[in-house]
């Protein structure tokens, strides 16, 4: 509760209300005070006027009695007047200070002392009296306000010419009229008026505050809290939020600016997210490309080091092999054909030749790592490779078919390496068809991922490759051929060479039906 009050005091509406309320209360109080004062003054002035006319009325009503010196009549008149409502007492003093007549009949004839309150009003503390009427407000024994008026009775012609000869001509003042009139009525009406004014002001204040509260609530608090809520939503990430304040005032402007800001923010965020997404994709693509390039590099590096090693091994091993072969042959001559010794030596020579073949295969790697690439017509290279194998005895019963595309793209390649690959493919196919069957060599243009590519297919009607083997055929030293026949390096070296040319070596095989190897090389493009 305390908190709530504190909070609402600190709110904009609270502050405004407090300020305006305070100002209004102060203003109304001042207004109230002056109005009240003015009213009171007016009423009092009226009552003073009334008092004068009242005194005048007393004088006039007793005039006849005075002139004709009928004291009983005067006394009766005074008593009658004194009995009127609101009149407390009426007295007529003579010039010696004796009460000549009074509304209270028992007072008549009493001489007032000079220091009695009635006398002091005109005479003050000294003895020379004022000859002007004196009006004063006093409080009676019941603490009610009373208007007291002392009015001198001046000498006039009718007085000193009257038959009674009571007053001489040179007397100036003949006596005084004193009247005490109750102001209770007046005070009551003043009080009532005060209460009425206060009520009016309070009601006015109440109505004004209610109106002010409502207006402020609608104009300030509601939009501000909406705005705050909107900001919180936006800060929380809800960029679809729009403020529904359509007024034409500053709050409306603020809301419109806020909505514009939110939609801008959203647009920017969407752009940012999109950018992030494409960036991620780009990074992925680049990463993949880098990985591939790295793999390629590692592969070529492997190939190169394998080549260097092969060259070293070839150089070192071939000399001892020469010795084995030579001395084997020398021994061979000493044993006549058909002897066990001769067969044993033949095994030695055979195995030495096998070693020599393995080393020649390894040398393929050495050559693969030293390519000299130039724009090459692949069909020509295919022709050369086919011519080499065609005359071999193994190919006598094999049907060789060629389907070349004369407009085949040229490729940037090392011709001797390509020839090595093609020869390899053809010999593999010949091995697969086991001496009789068909080998078809097809060259054609294709597009791979939108890029022009020259493709060469080596199709055979051979044994095919089993699924578990097809994964291993590109590994160095993998072979299914009998010992001495295959080293398992042909496809490994070919794969390395084709990869080094930026191409692909693919295989498609069906057990029992045949195999197709595809060499794909990117078309050579004239550098501009």
């Amino acid at each position: 509760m305390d908190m709530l009050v504190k909070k609402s005091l600190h709110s904009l509406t609270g502050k405004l209300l407090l300020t305006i309320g305070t100002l209004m209360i102060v203003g109304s109080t001042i207004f109230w005070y002056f109005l009240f004062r003015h009213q009171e003054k007016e009423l009092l002035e009226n009552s003073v006027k009334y008092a004068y006319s009242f005194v005048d009325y007393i004088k006039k009503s007793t005039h006849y009695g005075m002139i004709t010196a009928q004291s009983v009549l005067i006394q009766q008149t005074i008593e009658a007047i004194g009995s009127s409502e609101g009149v407390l007492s009426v007295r007529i003093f003579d010039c010696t200070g004796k009460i000549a007549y009074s509304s209270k009949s028992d007072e008549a004839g009493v001489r007032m002392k000079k220091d009695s309150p009635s006398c002091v009003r005109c005479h003050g503390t000294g003895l020379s009296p004022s000859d002007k009427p004196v009006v004063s407000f006093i409080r009676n024994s019941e603490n009610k306000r009373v208007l007291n008026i002392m009015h001198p009775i001046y000498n006039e012609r009718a007085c000193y010419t009257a038959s009674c000869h009571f007053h001489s001509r040179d007397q100036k003042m003949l006596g005084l009229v004193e009247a005490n009139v109750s102001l209770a009525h007046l005070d009551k009406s003043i009080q009532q008026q005060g209460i009425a004014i206060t009520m009016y002001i309070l009601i006015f204040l109440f109505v004004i505050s209610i109106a002010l509260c409502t207006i402020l609530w609608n104009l300030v608090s509601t939009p501000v809290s909406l705005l705050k809520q909107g900001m919180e939503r936006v800060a929380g990430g809800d960029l679809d939020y729009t403020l529904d304040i359509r007024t034409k005032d500053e709050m409306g402007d603020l809301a419109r600016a806020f909505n514009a800001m939110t939609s801008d923010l959203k647009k920017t965020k969407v752009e940012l997210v999109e950018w992030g997404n494409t960036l991620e994709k780009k990074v992925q693509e680049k990463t993949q490309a880098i990985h591939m390039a790295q793999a390629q590099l590692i592969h070529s590096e492997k190939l190169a080091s394998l080549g260097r090693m092969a060259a070293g091994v070839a150089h070192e091993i071939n000399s001892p092999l020469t010795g084995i072969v030579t001395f084997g042959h020398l021994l061979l001559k000493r044993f006549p054909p058909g002897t066990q010794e001769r067969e044993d030596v033949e095994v030695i020579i055979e195995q030495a030749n096998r070693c020599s073949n393995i080393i020649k295969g390894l040398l393929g790697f050495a050559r693969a790592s030293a390519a000299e690439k130039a724009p090459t017509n692949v069909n020509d290279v295919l022709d050369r490779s086919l011519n080499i194998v065609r005359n071999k005895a193994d190919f006598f019963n094999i049907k060789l078919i060629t389907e070349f595309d004369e407009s085949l793209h040229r490729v940037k390649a090392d011709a001797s390496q390509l020839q090595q690959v093609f020869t390899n493919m053809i010999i593999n196919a010949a091995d697969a068809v086991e001496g009789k069957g068909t080998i078809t060599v097809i060259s054609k243009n294709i597009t791979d991922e939108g890029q022009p590519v020259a493709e060469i297919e080596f199709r055979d009607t051979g044994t095919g490759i089993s699924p578990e083997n097809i994964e291993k055929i590109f590994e160095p030293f993998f072979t299914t051929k009998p010992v001495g026949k295959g080293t398992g390096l042909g496809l490994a070296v070919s794969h390395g060479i084709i990869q080094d040319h930026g191409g692909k070596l693919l295989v498609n095989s069906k057990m029992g039906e045949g195999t197709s190897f595809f060499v794909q090389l990117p078309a050579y493009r004239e550098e501009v």
Partner: protein
Amino acid sequence: MSKGRILVVDDEDIVRTSCSRTLVPEGYEVTLVKNGFDGLALLEQGPIDLVLTDLKMPEIDGIEILRRVKEKWPQVEVIIITGYQTVDTAVKAIKLGAFDYLEKPFTPDGLIASVAKAFAHKKTA
């Protein structure tokens, strides 16, 4: 009377003996040296018909020996023996006037055939 005088230059002992054991029974006079210096010194001393030289040797290699021989004794034939053949060196050797190119490991028959061809060529020349 020998069929001809042959100088074998090779840093590998086994290759040298293989050559002599193959060629001596065929009736050739074979001299074995294990480096280029000795080979060239021998060439200075006496007449040689054919030089069989390894390609890869420390200090003076086969190509260098081929060049010197062809400079000073153009009539002497040279057969290059090599551990492994590259297109580059083969082309270079043939251009410099080598008669043949033998890949290790060679068989006795292959060596004899190549040497015989060289001498036949020499005779017709």
